[in-house]
């Protein structure tokens, strides 16, 4: 056991300790605190990157036992590398962008300490190598990200935070049930590609366990029966919090589902069972409902939240058809949607903190006032809608083609249709904003036009993420190779 394995917990412990330390530190000037946070985030990203550069399946940490059978086990494979790098990168970007936004809020120090802690917990979540470790850090993530949601402790914020908490606790308990049902069958749940059980026609109790896990992790991913917390939590949370919530923390649910289905249960066990059908139906429902809601929604951040609901269900749909191509598409959509949605929320935050406008109809002509922001907004909207050759086009193409030759009776046709409809709706609810923003019409009076453009600290992350989203869409080959390897290993 060489020292590198212990280096594995460095990106976990560093932000957590830094955040806890931040609770007690006193900074003379705000800039000092921001420098501190920036340094922590950069070091975190660097260490995660170093870990990502290590060869596959070498880093393992299995020293810690919490109790009998409670084995905290860290193991790094390709999936965890991707998730951890994505998390660290987004954390850095949103962190930089949030400096300006949070300057308008109270007790930003408390916000940042929880922000850092959640970052550390998320990388632990990515590195966790068995289901129990994953569950432990999943709970920790819920409890530490709740203060982000209810940062300004108004009544609505607290209600939203409690709602978020209850949904997540209920989901986490479903996961724990599934875990114990597996235990009752005498299984040890260490992740291994392709599943450790992975037998055709298993006992029904284990199918039920897998279903419980899917729904439980689907809570974080905003899948239909348990999606209720998303639209409530996002509008009240500060913009950076909602950005990471819908950009990364929903993906934690996706990671959980991938782990429990493809690394514990095994696709062969689920393929063609009622579990798969229910899962597909639920995700399709969520896609459609989310886009409809977003289309009808008037508040900008709520609209973005509903769009998250539907977009994350794209990913779930791609996972649920159990087909390599669709799997690749789903993973790519994870990356793209995370980048896109963070950009969207950050720009929404810029609009809110600069002009204080939250409703969609107030945004008429906003493009003239903050052009760069709105250009980023428009570009990523185009990307999300999936206009060729942008990124989401690639992922959706893979999703659809995978679904088509997955051979699931009936659903393999309904799914793509719903995807296309929802793509149109996406265009409807995102591009209208950009159009109104740039072409306000004749009655808009250009006289009282003031420039509300935020400073570079807020623009730079937006631009970087937008550029990344676009570029990855145009040259997706490298990513695709990695994902194809993962898909080949699990399916």
């Amino acid at each position: 056991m060489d020292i590198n394995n212990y280096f594995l917990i460095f990106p976990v412990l560093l932000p957590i300790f830094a955040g806890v330390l931040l609770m007690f530190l006193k900074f003379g000037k705000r800039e000092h605190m921001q420098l501190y946070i920036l340094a922590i985030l950069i070091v975190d990203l660097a260490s995660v990157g170093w870990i990502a550069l290590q060869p596959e399946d070498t880093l393992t940490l299995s020293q810690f036992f919490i109790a009998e059978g409670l084995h905290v086990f860290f193991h790094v494979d390709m999936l965890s590398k991707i998730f951890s790098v994505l998390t660290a990168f987004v954390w850095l970007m949103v962190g930089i962008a949030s400096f300006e936004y949070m300057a308008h809020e109270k007790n930003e120090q408390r916000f940042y300490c929880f922000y850092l802690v959640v970052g550390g917990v998320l990388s632990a979540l990515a590195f966790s190598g068995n289901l129990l470790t994953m569950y432990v850090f999943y709970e920790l993530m819920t409890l530490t990200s709740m203060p982000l949601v209810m940062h300004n402790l108004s009544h609505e914020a607290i209600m939203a935070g409690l709602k978020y908490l209850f949904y997540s606790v209920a989901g986490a308990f479903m996961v724990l049930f599934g875990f114990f049902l597996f235990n009752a069958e005498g299984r040890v749940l260490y992740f291994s590609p392709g599943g450790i059980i992975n037998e055709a026609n298993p006992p029904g109790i284990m199918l039920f366990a897998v279903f419980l896990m899917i729904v439980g992790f689907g809570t974080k991913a905003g899948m239909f029966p348990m999606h209720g917390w998303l639209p409530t939590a996002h509008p009240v949370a500060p913009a950076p919090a909602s950005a990471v919530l819908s950009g990364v923390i929903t993906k934690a649910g996706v990671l959980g589902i991938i782990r429990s289905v493809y690394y514990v249960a095994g696709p062969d066990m689920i393929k063609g069972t009622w579990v798969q059908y229910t899962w597909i139906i639920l995700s399709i429902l969520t896609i459609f409902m989310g886009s409809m809601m977003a289309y009808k929604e008037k508040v900008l951040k709520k609209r973005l939240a509903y769009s998250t609901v539907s977009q994350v269900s794209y990913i779930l749909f791609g996972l649920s058809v159990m087909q390599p191509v669709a799997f690749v598409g789903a993973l790519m959509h994870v990356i793209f949607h995370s980048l896109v949605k963070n950009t969207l929320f950050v720009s929404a935050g810029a609009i809110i903190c600069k002009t204080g406008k939250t409703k969609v109809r107030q945004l008429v002509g906003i493009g003239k006032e903050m052009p760069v922001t709105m250009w980023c907004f428009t570009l990523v909207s185009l990307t999300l809608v999936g206009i060729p050759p942008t990124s989401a086009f690639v992922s959706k193409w893979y999703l659809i083609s995978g679904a088509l030759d997955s051979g699931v009776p009936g659903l393999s046709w309904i799914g793509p249709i719903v995807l296309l409809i929802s793509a149109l709706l996406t265009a409807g609810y995102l591009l209208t904003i950009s159009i109104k923003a740039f072409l306000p019409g004749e009655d808009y009076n250009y006289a009282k036009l003031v420039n509300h453009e935020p400073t570079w600290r807020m623009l730079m992350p937006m631009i970087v993420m937008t550029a990344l989203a676009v570029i990855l869409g145009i040259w997706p080959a490298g990513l695709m190779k990695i994902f194809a390897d993962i898909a080949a290993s699990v399916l």
Partner: protein
Amino acid sequence: MAFVQNFPFFCIILSMFSAIISFVMNGRIAKYIHVAMVTAVLILSLATLSFVAGTGESYTFMMGHFPAPWGNEIRIGELEALMAVFFSLIMMLSVFGGMAHIDREVQDSKKNLFYILLDLLMASLLALIYTNDLFTAYVFIEINTIAACGLIMIKKQGRTYVSALRYMIMSLVGSGLFLIGLTLLYSITGHLLMSPAKEALDQIIAVHSYQVPLMVIIILVTVGLGIKSGLYPFHTWIPDAYGYTTPSASAILSSLVSKGYIFLLIKIFYRVLGFDSIISSHMVNILFAFGVIGMIMGSVAAIKERNIRRMTAYSSVAQIGYIYMGLGLGTTAGVVAAVFHIISHGVMKSLLFLSISGLTEVSDGRSDYLSLRGAGLRNRIAGAAFTVGSLSMIGMPLLTGFISKYLFASAATTAGNKMITAWVVLAISTVLNTMYFMRTVLTLYRPVSAEVHKEYTLEKSKIERAAIIGLILLNIGLGVASQPVIKAIEAGLAMFG
């Protein structure tokens, strides 16, 4: 006979003697005597624990010159030693954590009596843990009851008198039932010491005689001790008793006194009646049912409650339901989980009660939600303590509550038809816990503008803060490294058999 083997006897006699000698001391010296006594008991029990764990087998200690069936005896195994360590530790931390409040709320002329009660409580708890003789157990149950009643009414207000009276009535009924069950047991076995009584009972069971008295004995003993430990249908005295006395007293009552009875019940199950006959008499199912109902109803009552101390008291009704649920599973794993929950609930609940006192004193003495707004911001350490305790109650990972919930759930996996029920109820009660504890924590951190509660005096008592921090660390430590404790519990239960 190694000298270490005398230590449990020294502990009991030491605590009794310190009580006797404190009768002529003034309050301050009595306090010092008590602190020294508890520290000594802790050290001696640690030595005993290490000794017993080293030899790996239990031993009996004659109280007098005469061997087992004739003279009194105490029996020391790993589980008993562990319990003694834990009880003395919690006693010490609770007394430290409420020291300033004791000085304020107890009259100066009665402080020494208060500490006498604490000493005798310690003595009776130790005797209940160690005893190998049923009638000794009865006598020390009475000491325990009276001392606990004294702790309840130490504040001398009408409220506390009434709660002390209700407590006395319930526990007198309990000890009456226990005593009559004891008498029946004596009349069919002819023994009062545990091991000979068990041998006699085995013969009786073998020849199938006295089946009805045996069943009635099981019922009477279980119900009696259940009443005294606040099992659900008999829980009505708990919120009053815990809710209105001085913080140290409520911490000790909720985390030690009732647990002593439960431990005695476990010991009687194993060492006298035999766990198999308990299972065959379906007593476990009854305990399971009552525990499950208690888990739900206690949490529901706690949700309805608006007074934070009473709410915490109701939550201990639910937690005692957990313990009986674990017993009722009827498997060794279930009993291990129950014993571990005895420990972890003691740690959590004493932390909660101590922190609540720190929170109410910065919200001009009121303990309803409206007045408690922002108390966590006014008294930071108490707020942090309450938060940690609540998270542990909810079962957040890396805290001790999670370990006990995990143990319960994994014990349920082997419990056959009770599995699903146990899990569902665990989940429901966890969500309910989340409701009321999180609600309270958020209320504590609700910002209020400065002109409310501008006149409060934050107690800067170093020793209380040290004790609270110690309890927090104990929570985290038990949550992170619970392996040795669980191992010790399993070994001790194996020694029981």
